[in-house]
């Protein structure tokens, strides 16, 4: 059976250590999750996400640093960009719940698992 892969974009400062904290606590989630880390997801243009879906990624969770983002104005720019990605997803008939922008801190273990659990439900329909 084809695995429904979830791409998780994390930040060096915040959500990547948050994902590590989940591991350190030996909490469990599905192995269909692939975490990549970036300084900030604001660097990705709209077509990065659309290309990922075309390639076969079922769901994408952007785990940003939110208001704790060390980069000035980056979160606001990211939010606006993600809104444009949603518009383009709609135009292409890609379900909007396959993309989620959220905030995960270095110690947000429960929130990390909740986001994965919700995306797992969203991608079952893909």
């Amino acid at each position, binding site marked *: 059976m*084809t*695995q429904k*892969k979830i*791409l998780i974009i994390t930040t060096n400062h*915040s959500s990547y*250590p948050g*994902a*590590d*904290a*989940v*591991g*350190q*606590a*030996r*909490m*469990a*989630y*599905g*192995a*269909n*999750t*692939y*975490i*990549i*880390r*970036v*300084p*900030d997801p*604001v*660097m*990705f*243009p*709209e077509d*990065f996400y659309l*290309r*990922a879906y075309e*390639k*076969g*990624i079922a769901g994408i969770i952007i785990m940003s640093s939110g208001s*704790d983002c*060390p*980069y*000035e*104005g*980056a979160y606001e*720019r990211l939010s606006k*960009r993600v809104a444009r990605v949603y518009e383009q997803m709609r135009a292409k008939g890609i379900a909007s719940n396959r993309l989620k922008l959220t905030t995960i*801190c*270095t*110690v947000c273990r429960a929130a990390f698992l909740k986001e994965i659990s919700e995306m797992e439900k969203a991608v079952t329909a893909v």
Partner: protein
Amino acid sequence: MDEKVKEEASKDNYRQEPKVGVYVCHCGGNISDIIDVKAVAAALAKYPGVTVAREYAFMCSSNGQDLITEDIKTLGVNRTVVAACSPSLHELTFRGVLQRAGVNPYLHEHVNIREQASWVHKLDKAGATAKAIKLAQAGVEKVLRKDALNAIRVAAEQRVAVIGGGAAGMKAALAAAGKGLEAVILEKTPRLGGKLPELGKMYPSGEEGAAVAKKLEDLVLAEKKITVHTGAEIDFVSGFVGNFKINFKKPDGSSAQVKAGAIVMATGYEHYKPYKGEFGYGEDGTVLTLPAFTALMKKLPAGRLEYGGREIKSLTLIHCVGSRQVEGVHKPQADGKINDYCSRVCCTAALHAANQLKEKYPGVRVYDVYRDIRAYGMKHEEYYDKASKDGVLFMRHNELDQPVVVSDRTGHTVKVKDVLTWGEELEFKTDLLVLVTGMTPADISLIKSQLKLPSGADRFLQEVHPKLRPVELANSGIFVAGAAQYPMDSTEVMASAGTAAAKAAILLAEPDIPLEPFVAVVDEHKCTGCGLCPPECSYDGALMMGEHNGKKVAVVNPALCKGCGACVAVCPTRAINVAGWTLEQFDAMVDAIAKE
């Protein structure tokens, strides 16, 4: 290796045909118990661009590192992927291996298959292995597209801010000053010393806590490199490694700020406060905590023990009050959690107190009711031996059969189901109850939330790794000293504080700190001079339009660029990227992950 050599090595690596070495770590069994590391290495050995793929018990060990060095020398490996623990632990280790072998350290990719694979997919070994293969392949794709880079150095404040002026804070400040650093102690209470002055005779030296506190305070006040702010109420902490800012209010209400390159969290602990009715606490004046009893014993004359106007002929110590609590047995704390951790130091403290009591008041009968005795420190077992020889009567209960105390006007009746007498239900009268209370973390919620400091399930601050990165918090440039980390005695506090200060001194040994060279770079051949990127940049002067070779192009000032990548997303020709984190790399990683 000097800068010039490093620069030459970088250029050579950049020009060479990429040869990737992939190294899969077992991490003892941490990874290999779940992930089939041989299968991962075998899959990667066949992957395009990979020259060699190996698996090894501990890649971070010197033998593991030697494997990479040897492959660089003999096989010409010039880029590496190490699939192991989190990059926060060992990315720098492996960059160092490359650098020492003459390869640019940034031609390395660290793939996390422990915290983000084996530790979270224990019930899905096949899935974890498949995921590890995909992640390692994505790592290969990324490293194949990496450029040689050189570190950027940023100016750092040559000062360490020590939050907390107890034993740990004073020791950390003294140790930092001893290394030539300026240290600023920010203490919220009106005096230095923390809880030391409350302690009576301290083991193992027998010195009075107040005397030790005074000695430390005198040294601190005499040290010109140390500034002390008592009564300092911290209201805002911000910044990053090398450039932290701590705003606080002085006792007179005025505001002040300390700038520091590093922070030492020496925020200490609180004594567990029993709830009203816990073994009669708060209902009867003859139920005390051990700290309260120690303070009392200091004041009372020797010979005849009197308390509350009556002679105390018998005294009972009850251990593990507020520690090693059991779900369903003990009342939860305010946050709904129980204190299931062991406070470690209270057993020895109780034995030490019992011995002092027997010395001062030999006629008093002493009962010691415990679950386990953890006399873990050097020679601490001798306190147990002495107490036994001096007639302290020990009774041991199991975790579910907690001792029961019934109090009336004649004193307290203690009932214990004693494991030492094969479960016999013992009952005895006692005049004074002393609850051996544990330690809880101090309330530092404001600082924790502002700096996002990590804490463990026990709510104490959590270091990155007990062996590899002790006293370092995940937040770069912030260290923990003393009982802010976990319950520890004063000898351990001193060692921990010295370590924290030494790490801060190493970090600030030079006036600038090497930072990752991950700033925006412009490919002038691709740049069309459209001008879309500068408005995206939030940092004045970091990205502007300029002219080069007669062509209008975007120009980055690497000293001002923070490397966020906001400019990257808007470039229609992908001419601008963050060095080390390019869109081309991420597209290739996604391809590798998505591929069936």
